[in-house]
């Protein structure tokens, strides 16, 4: 079995891998860091997003397919 990094609470008791120590809970990045992270996503999108959203959305009309 490949390296198992996370354990589910539902894993079978008999699984020897369950003896492995529980991973430390993921350390949440500081809120400030997270905010600036999301900001850079928004900046990336702001830079290329169609300027007239309403018209762009209205113009995207498809015929049904399979």
């Amino acid at each position: 079995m490949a390296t198992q990094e996370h354990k589910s609470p539902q894993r079978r008791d008999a699984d020897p891998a369950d003896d492995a120590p529980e991973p430390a809970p993921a350390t949440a990045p500081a809120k400030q860091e997270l905010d600036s992270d999301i900001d850079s996503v928004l900046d990336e999108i702001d830079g290329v997003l169609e300027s007239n959203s309403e018209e762009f959305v209205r113009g995207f009309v498809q015929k049904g397919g399979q």
Partner: protein
Amino acid sequence: MTVRRVMGIETEYGISVPGDPTANPMVLSGRVVTAYATQQGMRAARAGWDYEDEAPLRDARGFDMARAIADPSQLTDEEDPTLANVVLTNGARLYVDHAHPEYSSPEVTTPRAAITWDRAGELVMREAVGLLAAPGAPGVNLYKNNTDGKGASYGTHENYLMSRATPFADVVRHLIPFFVARQVMCGSGRVGIGVESTRPGFQLAQRSDFFEVEVGLETTLKRPIINTRDEPHAVAERYRRLHVIIGDANHSDVSNLLKLGTTSLVLGMIEAGAITQDLTVDKPVESLHRLSHDPTLKATIEVAGRRTMTGVQLLWSYYELADAWLQQLYGGELDPDTAEVMQRWEQVLTTLERDPMDAAREVDWVTKLQALEGFRARDGLEWSDPRLKAIDIQWSDVRADKGLFNRLLAAGRVDQLVDDETVRAAVTAPPEDTRAYFRGTCLARFPHEVAAASWDSVIFDVSSQPSLQRVPTLEPERGTKSHVGGLLEQADTADELLRLLAQDTPAGA
């Protein structure tokens, strides 16, 4: 049982001309295919498609639908000369399906290869967009998504080769619950609830609201969770091709790998009779919609008539069964492809269970939702705001500079499993371990002598023969590089190849 099996992905791309919503999508789609084919030095009608073995009305339940009662959109085998159609040197088919350009990947044998040749299709479409973008012309934009949010949906289908011996009823019973829950890991995210987005909001999957019944032959109306099309494109007594129509077009490698990999494992268990639990979901269609409509992943569905489970919990049940079955078969020794899928499967479920938003690097719908929530928070937008709908559409634009997912990928914000170089090579090179190798290499070596091709044949037109020479390729795992690579290398002409094939075992038969 491993993740290994013959598989492939077909994707119909959304198509539009900026500023001209009335442009004819069939004509436009034809232009996309022709532009790409021409640039490759191929004529879209030249290396055409061989329709001889197509039977789209053959039902896995054992009967044929009468052509007279079929919707015209189900008659996919009637050749229309106005529709462009080409087989590429990578073994894929590029053509117009209804009103969309479609890329059907070549047959591959692993989930990794499936995402590699699926992404190669994105590059093909991107190239076509570039070719049609003449200065001053509005151009054509293509989108790897599955709905316009206004009531129309178009498909991304998976195909899996299965043993004919497996009763179809077992496939139906064990696969429906899995497909109800699979969107939790593999959905691409959508702004709007309901087929026409009548309710504002966000949901996990592009396609889910378009599914109305549990089992059926249709693909364009009354869409079924399990599609019964029985058109194996292979030796029919031995194989079934399971045609899966419920998935979304994926951008994320991880979601895409899990879609193909976990489905292949569940099919392996069905074939082996290893699904020992009753996971029947009550009211599957309603349950599918309910799970899709809840990005907190707290929504529950009723399983086996006696317990309620979240989508993640139901997927854990399948994971547990696969893990136990693999332990029993192989102990701790898994091949790398299977090990990768199992590891990612466990990681993603663990993350989604902890906090869905922590899966933004791996799961398509989470990546999209995180960005949308960012806009909502920053600019105070309601879910009905056109900017959010615009982001949802532009997310899937195939262009590197305009597609929002592509921007986030380039900025290193999403996990990528297959590097760009490998994908670029797959635009022209076929997989080496299926009959796609023979098909693609014949197209590359003898473009003028291949009169037509299909999944299960290559037809040659050589001057030494009075009639067309049809080489059947009915065994998907023959015609590989190890099988025919030597012959193809040895042959200087198509004529010589046919002579060598006649002496040797035929490529596929």
